[in-house]
């Protein structure tokens, strides 16, 4: 029987476009120290370390070895998990599995990236099939632009609809002291920003960020001793459907449809819009905030924009999304999915400060990456049965 697992603390760095004041190893340490302090634990309390990034962004292969002084992994089992864009959410899910296994009681899980150290798009391109996918590909931006083109064509969704979603995330980021971009923008700002890859403009897409996030997972045997309100993990699910981008079915984000339905079933969620209090979504570009919430079953196909325009997903709305400002405001890629988990845990604990959504009982986070892969986690205030 698997142990029940909770998040009991977390730490994030001061995320920024360029943290030249620290090496990657030092950046990791900043997050780890903050997480330990947050959970009131010492490094000696920790019985294992899981760390992840995308090596090709820094060009340091074996970053788990090179960073061990910063991660605190000396003398402990240290495991690396990396799955491209989903690295952070894979860390969140992998951490759950490892603690559920009974082998670890207090596990330190770290995601990080120093995107300033290389050309992000060039590096992302190397994650894709060299024979069939790379000829035309220009990283995540072009891949997502293609998805947006199909979505707009199918439902008549506009660039203005997407801009409203970017405006929401950037507005929320103002409340988050850790966010990279903390300046509000308007729909017009988005529409007038330079076109990168039709229909995506500069302000439709996430930045590249230097940052790290550390999260402490605990088993049911110790969680409540560490934290008065642990963020219990109610469900994890993922779907990896394709190897090649050319195989992707653009009619919807199938991987998220399938993973979210599995997660809802495991967590006993029937009406996600009503039963989940807040979502931290790995939505790296504006259109994802429309079409992927349809994949999550929150709106009918083509009707995601209505939820956005009606303010349902704003702070104060029925289901606030990305109170942290989301990925459009902060994107240290290997940490991005784990930041979503950390932010959900803060919401469950009632410790999210200016970005707190009142009275959150359940939260949901996602991860996106790989070849249109999706991860989903659901968190709750109550220890699962």
């Amino acid at each position, binding site marked *: 029987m698997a142990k029940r697992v909770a998040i009991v603390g977390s730490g994030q760095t001061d995320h920024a476009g360029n943290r030249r*004041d620290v090496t990657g190893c030092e950046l990791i340490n900043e997050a780890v120290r903050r997480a330990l302090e947050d959970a009131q634990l010492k490094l000696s309390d920790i019985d294992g370390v899981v760390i992840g990034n995308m090596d090709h962004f820094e060009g340091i292969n074996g970053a788990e070895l090179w960073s061990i002084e910063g991660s605190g992994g000396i003398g402990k089992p240290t495991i690396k998990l990396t799955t491209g864009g989903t690295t952070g959410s894979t860390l969140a899910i992998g951490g759950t599995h490892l603690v559920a296994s009974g082998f670890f009681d207090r596990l330190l899980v770290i995601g990080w990236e120093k995107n300033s150290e290389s050309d992000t798009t060039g590096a992302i391109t190397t994650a894709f099939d060299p024979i*069939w996918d790379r000829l035309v590909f220009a990283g995540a931006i072009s891949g997502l632009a293609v998805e947006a083109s199909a979505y707009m064509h199918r439902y008549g969704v506009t660039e203005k609809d997407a801009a409203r979603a970017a405006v929401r995330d950037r507005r929320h980021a103002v409340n988050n002291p850790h966010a990279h971009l903390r300046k509000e923008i308007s729909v017009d700002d988005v529409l007038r920003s330079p076109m*990168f890859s039709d229909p995506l403009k500069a302000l439709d897409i996430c930045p590249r960020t230097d940052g790290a996030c550390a999260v402490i997972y605990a088993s049911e045997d110790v969680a409540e001793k560490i934290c008065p309100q642990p963020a219990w993990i109610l469900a994890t699910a993922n779907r990896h459907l394709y190897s090649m981008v050319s195989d992707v079915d653009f009619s919807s984000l199938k991987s998220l449809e399938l993973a979210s339905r599995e997660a809802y079933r495991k967590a006993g969620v029937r009406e996600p819009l009503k039963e989940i209090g807040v979502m931290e979504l790995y939505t790296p570009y504006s259109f994802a905030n429309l079409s992927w919430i349809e994949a999550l079953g929150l709106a009918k196909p083509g009707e995601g924009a209505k939820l956005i325009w009606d303010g349902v997903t704003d702070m104060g709305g029925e289901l606030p999304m990305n109170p942290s400002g989301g990925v459009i405001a902060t994107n240290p890629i290997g940490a991005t999915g784990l930041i979503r988990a950390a932010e959900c845990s803060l919401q469950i604990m009632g410790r999210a400060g200016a970005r707190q959504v009142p009275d959150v009982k359940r939260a949901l986070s996602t991860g996106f990456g790989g070849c249109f892969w999706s991860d989903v986690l659901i968190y709750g205030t109550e220890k699962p049965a």
Partner: protein
Amino acid sequence: MELKSRPRRRDFITISSGESFSPFHYSVGRFGSQFLTELRDHKRFMGMRCAGCGRVYVPPRPVCGPCFKKMDDWVEVGPNGTLIAFTILRFAFIDPETGQKKPVPYGYGFIRLDGADTQLQHFLPVGAKPPKIGMKVRPVFEEIRHGNLRDIRHFEEIA
């Protein structure tokens, strides 16, 4: 001990890796090689049908991922197809294979060749008339072909 200099934010030092170049040599495999050879020598597109789910894959490969079945049923597809999705790159990003920026603007799309269930990604000409999803397209081949995807110059609209 007191330090004699104190670098400020803009003074923090970075070290560059230099003009590193480390070529890789990727195996295309038996099925991929067959596809590219047919394309080079006969301007034909060959797909692979799964006996389990009936799906026709382009590019061909020996295993259907969802069925996890071995495949060995070649079918001819295309050469014409339908544009499923596309973009036009306006901003020049670095191409890690050359270290250079790809010249912009350039268009590319997902083309479902007639008879196939997956897409081939390839260039679209950027002209006065923008590409349209659903439009029928045909390949334009290079005169001299080498057995890679560049043997096709691009796909153009069938007027």
